[in-house]
C-alpha cells in the first residue's frame, strides 16, 4: 500500500510513473477513513483540497519537475498556519479561526512540491505530553488504543505511525516532537533553535519553540528538515546558517564518532525495559564503531523547574492575544474586562489556564528576580553544560522518555507526573541545541515502542542524522507497524 512507503521510496515510484500522487493521496485518505475513527489523529481533512493538490502535482511530475517532495502528502499539526484552513491549536478559544496566511514552513513545503493536508490533533496550545489536553478529543496511540500517543504533537506522531500520511510536521517546545515520536515508534526531529523559521507557528514559548518533522525513517526526516530549514526574514530569531544536504551525509559510517552518555540521565526511576533497550542501543552503536564515554550535565536537575518558569512566562504573554476582541470565541461582557474573563474562562482548558497563571505569577512585580531572572541564569548554565560536553563528544545519547506510552487518564490528574515525562527532552530546548528520537525497541507486553534520543551541537543536525541513520539501518525497529493498521479493510 502506497501510504506505508517512505518519501524516498515514493519519489522513485512517482518519477517512474509507477504510481500517481492522486493514488497516493487517496491511499492516505482511505487509511484515515479506516483507522482514524479509532486513532483520532486528525481534527479535520479537506479531501477535495488534498486531491486537487495531488492533481497539480501529477501534472508537475509529468512535466519532469524535480522538487524533493513533489506529490508527497504531508500532514500538519494544528499549530501551524495554513492559508484558508482552520487554525485552532486544539483550543476552543480559536473557534472558527481560519488563517489568512501560510507559515514559512508551509510555504517551503509547497515550494518543494508537497501536498499539505489535514489538521493534526495536539494538546491545547502545545501544552501537554499526552494529547489529552485537546479541546477536540484525545488522540490514541496506534500501538495500543488505550494509551496516549505522547504530546503535544500526538496527532502528528500517531498519523505517521498509523500510515495516515507519509510524514508530518509538529512543534517541539520541551519534547513535543521527540516524546510522541518515541511513544509511537517513529522518527522525530527537534532542530536547533533558529534553524527553522517560526513564522506561522502559533507561539507557546517563543524562545523554546521549534518546528520539526515526523517521518518513517531517518532519511525522510533529513529530507524534510532540509526543506523547512533556513533563514527567514520574517523571523528575527532565525539564523542565516547555510542548510547542508543532510541526505548525502547518511553514509552509514559512524566509526570513531564520540558519543556522550550523561550520567545524570541514567539513574533510577526509569522504566526497566526502556533502560534495557537504551543500553542495548548504546552497545549497538559501539558495535558500529562509535566511541562512547560518560559525560556530565551537572545542571540537569534544574531543567524541569527552569523550563516551567520560562515557558509559562512566555506563554502568559503569547496567549494574551486570545481575548475575544478580534477573532475566535467571544463571550460577551458588560465591559472589556468582563468580556476577557468570560471569553478566556470559557475558551481555555485547565492546563492552559494553569500555565498562564503560573507564567503571570513568575513575571509579577516582586517575583521576577526570584523566578524568571533566576531561571534565565540557570538556563545559561544548562546551555554551558551542553557546549562544554560537546567539546568532548559529537553527540549525546539518552532515552527519549523515561517510560513507554502510558494509559489515557493515568497522569492527567497529576500535572507534575505529566511534566516529568519530558525530563529527558526539556534541556535540549533550554540549550537551543538539536535533537532527534529514533525507534530503538519495544516493550514486551504490551508491545510499545521505545525511543532513543540523540542530542547534537547547535546546527549539528547532520551528525545526528548520520548516527541515527546508521543505527536505524542496522536494526528493523523502524519497519514495525501496529498490526491492525496494516490490514486491508
Amino acid at each position, binding site marked *: 500500500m502506497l501510504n506505508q512507503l517512505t518519501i524516498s521510496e515514493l519519489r522513485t515510484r512517482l518519477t517512474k510513473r509507477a504510481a500517481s500522487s492522486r493514488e497516493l493521496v487517496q491511499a492516505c485518505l482511505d487509511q484515515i477513513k479506516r483507522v482514524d475513527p479509532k486513532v483520532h489523529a486528525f481534527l479535520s481533512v479537506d479531501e477535495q483540497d488534498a486531491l486537487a493538490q495531488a492533481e497539480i502535482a501529477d501534472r508537475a511530475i509529468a512535466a519532469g519537475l524535480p522538487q524533493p517532495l513533489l506529490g508527497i502528502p504531508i500532514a500538519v499539526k494544528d499549530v*501551524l*498556519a495554513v492559508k484558508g484552513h482552520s*487554525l485552532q*491549536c486544539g483550543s476552543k478559544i*480559536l473557534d472558527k*479561526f481560519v*488563517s*489568512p*496566511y501560510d*507559515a514559512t514552513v508551509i510555504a517551503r513545503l509547497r515550494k518543494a512540491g508537497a501536498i499539505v493536508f489535514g489538521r493534526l490533533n495536539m494538546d491545547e496550545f502545545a501544552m501537554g505530553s499526552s494529547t489529552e489536553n485537546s479541546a477536540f478529543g484525545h488522540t490514541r496511540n496506534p500501538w495500543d488504543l488505550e494509551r496516549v500517543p505522547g504530546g503535544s504533537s500526538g496527532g502528528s506522531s500517531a498519523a505517521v505511525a498509523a500510515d495516515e500520511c507519509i510524514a508530518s510536521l509538529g512543534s517541539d517546545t520541551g519534547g513535543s516532537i521527540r516524546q510522541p515520536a518515541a511513544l509511537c515508534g517513529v522518527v522525530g526531529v527537534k532542530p536547533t533553535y533558529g534553524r527553522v523559521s*517560526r*513564522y*506561522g*507557528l*502559533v*507561539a507557546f*514559548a*517563543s*524562545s523554546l519553540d521549534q518546528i520539526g518533522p515526523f517521518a518513517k525513517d531517518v532519511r525522510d526526516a533529513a529530507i524534510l528538515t532540509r526543506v523547512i530549514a533556513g533563514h527567514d*526574514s*520574517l*523571523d*528575527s*530569531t532565525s539564523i542565516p546558517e547555510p542548510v547542508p544536504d543532510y541526505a548525502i551525509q547518511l553514509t552509514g559510517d559512524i566509526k570513531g564518532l564520540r558519543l556522550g552518555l550523561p550520567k545524570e540521565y541514567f539513574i533510577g526511576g526509569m522504566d526497566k525495559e526502556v533502560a534495557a533497550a537504551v543500553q542495548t542501543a548504546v552497545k549497538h552503536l559501539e558495535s558500529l564503531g562509535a566511541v562512547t564515554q560518560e559525560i556530565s550535565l551537572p545542571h540537569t536537575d534544574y531543567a524541569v523547574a527552569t523550563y516551567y518558569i520560562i515557558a509559562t*512566562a*512566555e506563554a*502568559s*504573554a503569547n496567549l*494574551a*492575544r*486570545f*481575548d475575544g*476582541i*478580534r*477573532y475566535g470565541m467571544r463571550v460577551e461582557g458588560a465591559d*472589556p*474586562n468582563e468580556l*476577557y474573563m468570560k471569553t478566556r474562562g470559557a475558551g481555555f482548558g485547565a492546563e492552559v489556564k494553569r500555565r498562564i497563571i503560573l507564567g*503571570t505569577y513568575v*513575571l*509579577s*512585580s516582586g517575583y*521576577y528576580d526570584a523566578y*524568571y531572572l533566576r531561571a534565565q541564569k540557570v538556563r545559561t548554565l544548562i546551555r554551558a553544560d551542553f557546549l562544554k560536553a560537546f567539546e568532548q563528544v559529537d553527540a549525546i545519547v539518552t532515552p527519549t522518555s523515561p517510560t513507554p506510552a502510558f494509559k489515557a487518564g493515568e497522569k492527567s490528574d497529576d500535572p507534575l507526573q505529566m511534566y516529568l515525562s519530558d525530563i529527558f527532552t526539556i534541556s535540549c530546548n533550554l540549550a537551543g541545541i538539536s535533537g532527534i528520537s529514533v525507534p530503538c525497541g519495544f516493550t514486551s507486553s504490551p508491545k510499545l515502542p521505545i525511543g532513543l534520543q540523540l542530542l547534537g551541537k547547535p546546527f549539528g543536525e547532520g551528525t545526528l542524522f548520520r548516527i541515527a541513520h546508521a543505527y536505524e539501518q542496522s536494526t528493523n525497529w523502524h519497519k514495525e507497524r501496529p498490526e491492525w493498521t496494516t490490514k486491508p479493510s
Partner: protein
Amino acid sequence: MDYEAVIGLETHVQLKTRSKMWCGCANEFGAPPNTNVCPVCLGLPGVLPVANEEALRLTVLTGMLLNCDIPRHAKFDRKNYFYPDVPKNYQITQYDKPSTQSGHVDFEFEGKIVRVHITRAHLEEDVGKNFHFESNSGVDFNRAGVPLMEIVSEPDITSADMAYTYLNALKDILIFGGVSACDMEKGMVRCDVNVSVRPKGQQELGAKIEIKNMNTFSGVRRAVDHEIPRQIDVLKAGGKLTQETRRWDDTAGITEVMRTKEYAHDYRYFPEPDLMPFEPSDDWIADVRKRVVELPLARKQRFMTMYNLPAPDADTFVNDRPLADYFEKAVRSASNAKAVANWVINNLRAKLTESGTSLESVKIQPPQIQELITLVDSGKISTKIAQDVFTEMFENGQSPASIVEQKGLAQVSDTGAIEQFCDEVIAANPKSAADFKAGKAAALNFLKGQVMKASKGKANPNLVGKILERKLKLA
C-alpha cells in the same frame, strides 16, 4: 509655607518612517479604518515582529540630537496589559536597555537658556484606536504598530510655562532632525505629565501624580497650571497626596482620578523573545551620526555670534530654514551680514509672499544680493534706486550691475550736473530758499526732494544736500 512644583514629561512621538515598526504596512494617517493592517500588526496567531531599521536609526538619531549616550546593547521587552486597542495584549517596548539614555536639551525660557535632562528616548509601538458607537465599539488598527518613540525627561521642569516651552523646543528639534512630522492634529505627539509638589527647600520628592494622554501642548500647560495649585491646596489643608494617575478634562479645565496606586498596572515586563538584542556597530552609528543636524538653539546662537545679527533676525532664520540657507549663501563677510539679512528678510521674503513664489524658484542668485549691497555702499546707486533694482532682479534674475547699466540708474555724483539741478530748483522755489535762510531747516529737505525729483532719483543725495546748503548760504 511656600511650595514648589517638580515636573517630568514622557513624550510619545510617532516616527517618520514609510512602514510600520514590525511589518510592511504603511505608516500613514487618515486611511479608512483597518486598511493599513496585516496579520503582523493585527496580532494574528503565529506572526512575528521584524524591527524596522529606519525606526531604530531615527531613535538613535534622536539620542544624538538630545546629547544622549548610545548604548551598544539595547533590547526590546514586552509590556503586558489587556486593552482592546492592543492587538497582542502586550506592547513591545524597551524597558531596561533603551537605545538611548542620559542626555539633555537646552532651550530659551524667560530670557535665559535652561537645561532639562533626558532620562532616555526609547522605541516602542503605537496601539490602535478605539471608537465608541451607540450600541457597540470598534477598533481601528491602522495606527497599531506605528513606530513610537518615548522621550522621558528628568523632573527638571518647574512650571507650566516651562513644560510648554520644553515641549515646543523638543518638537522643533524633532522636526529639524527629520525624526517626526510632529503633527499634533494627527496625534503624532502625545504626553504624560508627572507633577508633584514639595515644600521649598525639601530634597525629597512629593507623591508623583501622573496626568495621562495629553495631546496638545496648551492642554499640558493648562493641566499643569491647574494641578500645581490643586496639590498645594491639598497639602495646605492638611491633606496627604498619594501616587495616582489622573486624566485631564479639557472642557471642565480640571484633572480627575483615573486610578490610584493600588490599581496601578503590573506590566510584568520581560525580554521580547521574538527579537534579538539590538547591538549597533561603529559603522552603523557613524552612518546615523551623518544625519545629525544643527539644532534650533545652536543655530540661533551661531547666527547671532557669527553674523552679529540681532535675536529677531536669528529667530527668523531658525524658523525659516530655506531662507536661512539662502542668507548663508548670500552673505560673504560678517561686516555687512546685517545688510544682507535686511534684504533677505525684508525684501526677498516680502516679494516671495507677495508673488506667491517659493524660494526654490527664485531668480535672484544669492551672490547678487551682495552685489546690490556693494552698489549701494559704493555710492553707485541710492538706497531708493536699489529697491527698484531689486524688483527688476526679482522679476528677471538679471545682475544688479546690468540693470543699473541698462536703465541708466547710476547715481549722479558729477557735481557739475548736480549744481545745475540745484540752481534750477532754488530759482524755481524762492519761498523755500527764503524760509531756509530764515532758519527753517525743514525747507532744505523740500528742496532736496525737488532736486532728486529733477534728477529722476539718480543724484547722490549726500552731494545734493551739501551743494544746496552751500549755495543757499552763499546766496
